[in-house]
């Protein structure tokens, strides 16, 4: 027995040491650092870097430790971090409801700090305020707004001798003419499923909200359904566009990246996307000129609306390790300096009216639509749960590949909508 004591002891000590090492590993995820360190997780890749730099310059001695990631990845990671208590002090939060990283989803279980007492909260325009709030309190520092429309490659348009259509009939004629010239009208990267919704949103804005701006209230009251509304018309128009040859071949095999390459290089005349794509197109083709126009869905141009809505903003972790610095950062983002820096880099428009921002000429039309109140929020921002959107995204892929029909998809979306939050 005695001879066995030593190996047993060694084994026991080793196992304890290994277990300790394991538990130490989880703790390494914490931020640590002194009162001069702020942790930040952001989806604003390509723009937040400059804002962080400006913030650090304005606050000497402060260090921001930040990570950036794509929306899909971020939404998955932030939930895990919040529920395990390892989330950063400041994090990207989407407006409204309807996606896993949205204001309501995160504010409801108490993960976000109430920001209503900050000076900018009261200055937000109503359209922005509704999606920055949960139960009347502001949780999201939304700094920019974005719109969805047809982004045209001006050089390719000149080469084809075509001009941007402003009625539905012209749009179909435009598609046919573009196809005849060998350069399809629009690039469509439907392999990435979030892309599938953008054309539909652009059409829904005019067909659904044109005649009825209160559609969402009716949906919430249970007085309307997707299937029995103009959504069916919009979806039908999307399919008509595909059948008319408005998009390049095989949109389901084309990803977001590849669709940008098509539009940037003039292999298509444009792309139906958010304004954020303009910066990416310019990155791929620095000599190109790209202009965002509204996508028509009826034959009366005065009825056309643009889906334009608050972009992702920043929320403060309710359990932030450095609350003071977190608030300071959010207030910097909402200051004229921070906001203009952000939207300039992103190619969007500021959320507050008085920042003195001069919009890029490529966004002149979007800017005009916003000031004349001809915009509606992105549809999913007011949906009760994340499932409606996910059903729509994979359903659209199924329609494009002949596995489903518009009627079936709208019925499924109604079922998910009614299942509530």
């Amino acid at each position: 027995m005695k001879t066995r004591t030593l190996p047993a002891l060694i084994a026991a000590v080793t196992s304890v040491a290994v277990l300790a090492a394991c538990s130490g590993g989880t703790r390494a995820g914490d931020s640590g650092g002194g009162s001069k360190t702020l942790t930040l997780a952001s989806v604003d890749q390509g723009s937040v870097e400059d804002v962080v730099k400006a913030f650090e310059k304005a606050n000497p001695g402060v260090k921001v430790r930040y990570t950036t990631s794509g929306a899909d990845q971020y939404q998955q990671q932030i939930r895990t971090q919040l529920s395990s208590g390892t989330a950063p002090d400041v994090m990207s939060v989407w407006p409204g409801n309807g996606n896993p990283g949205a204001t309501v989803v995160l504010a409801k279980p108490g993960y976000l700090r109430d920001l209503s007492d900050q000076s900018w909260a009261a200055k937000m325009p109503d359209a922005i305020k509704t999606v920055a709030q949960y139960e009347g309190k502001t949780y999201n520092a939304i700094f920019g707004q974005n719109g969805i429309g047809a982004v045209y490659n001006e050089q390719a348009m000149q080469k084809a001798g075509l001009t941007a259509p402003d009625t539905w009939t012209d749009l179909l004629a435009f598609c046919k003419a573009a196809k005849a010239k060998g350069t399809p009208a629009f690039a469509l990267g439907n392999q990435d499923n979030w892309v599938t919704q953008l054309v539909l949103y652009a059409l829904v804005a005019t067909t659904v909200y044109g005649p009825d701006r209160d559609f969402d209230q009716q949906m919430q009251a249970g007085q309307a359904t997707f299937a029995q509304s103009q959504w069916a018309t919009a979806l039908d128009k999307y399919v008509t566009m595909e059948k008319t040859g408005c998009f390049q071949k095989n949109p389901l095999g084309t990803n977001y990246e590849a669709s940008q390459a098509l539009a940037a290089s003039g292999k298509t005349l444009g792309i139906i996307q958010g304004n954020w794509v303009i910066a990416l197109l310019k990155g791929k083709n620095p000599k190109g000129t790209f202009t965002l126009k509204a996508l028509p869905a009826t034959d009366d141009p005065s009825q056309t609306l643009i889906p334009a809505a608050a972009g992702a903003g920043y929320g403060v972790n309710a359990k932030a390790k450095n609350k003071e610095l977190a608030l300071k950062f959010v207030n910097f983002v909402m200051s004229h300096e921070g906001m203009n820096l952000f939207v300039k880099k992103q190619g969007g428009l500021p959320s507050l009216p008085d920042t003195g921002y001069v919009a890029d000429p490529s966004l002149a039309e979007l800017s005009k639509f916003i000031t004349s109140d001809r915009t509606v929020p992105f549809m999913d921002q007011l949906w009760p749960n994340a499932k409606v959107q996910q059903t729509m995204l994979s359903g659209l892929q199924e329609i494009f590949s002949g596995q489903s029909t518009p009627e079936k998809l709208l019925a499924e979306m109604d079922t998910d909508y009614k299942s509530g939050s």
Partner: protein
Amino acid sequence: MTLAPHEQLPDHDRPPDAKRAPKVRRARTTPPWWFALPALLLFAFVVLVPSVRGVYYAFTDWDGLDPDFSFIGLDNFSDILDDPDAMQAIWHTLLIAVSITVVQNAVGLLLALGVNSAIKSRNALRVFLFAPAVITPIVTAYLWRNLLGPDGAVNSLLGAAGLDGWQQDWLGSPQVALWSVIGVIVWQYAGYSMVIFLAGLQSVPKEIHEAAAIDGAGPVRRFWSVTRPLLAPALTINLMLSIIGGIKLFDQVYALTGGGPGHATDTLSTLIYKDAFTLGEFGYSIALAVVLTIIVAVVSTGQYLVLSRNERAVS
């Protein structure tokens, strides 16, 4: 566990006592059971306990965020039966697992036979064929995602070869996408199967082959009656690895198609991931994970029993 091939063979090269000696020593000093304790404890705390605690959530409606959730019994499991996406994913999972197991091992075996022959540059070929298996699956998936695009290299090559009719929307067509995914995985892992088969082939003693040749057996007959039975252990390992790998398949599918178009390539693993992390239905997705665990356990146990009986029969 499976015996290495040489342990089952009469070994002419070694003196008889060299083989018996370890047995004698082993019999005299059986290690005390508690030697296994540290490993067992570690396994219990790091794998077993968290897994079992995780299973509990399969019986709840937890959304991954809200600390308030309730116990809902077997509701999640009955929902799986009513969910066409889940049933389709289970079907895709089994289809992928079976296809990969058959094709990958067939290709792997042929490659192994090829590079085991006396052809020139066979060492270079072995390295070349094994190389895809050591690349991260995500990297190969992104590579193929571009190669298989509508304007990608595969379609361009087919076009250049005059085979325009064979051009496909490889990842965008629901009829083709699943097979494209299977093709990419076979491309990546056939070399891995090859290496295991090669090890098995090289342990087949030359003498037996020579004896069979003298008895008048041709190459096909020698393969069937000499090589094949002696390859049984390698086959067992390969089949086990490929079927378990096939059932658990996630990264390649997710990076290649994201489960799309629609749900045309969703496997149980991609569905588990999406339900948990994009929809926040953690309870339901853990229930799916439990189903996956049961499928893996049943299939691999069944396969192991059949194959080990087969091994005993031939040895």
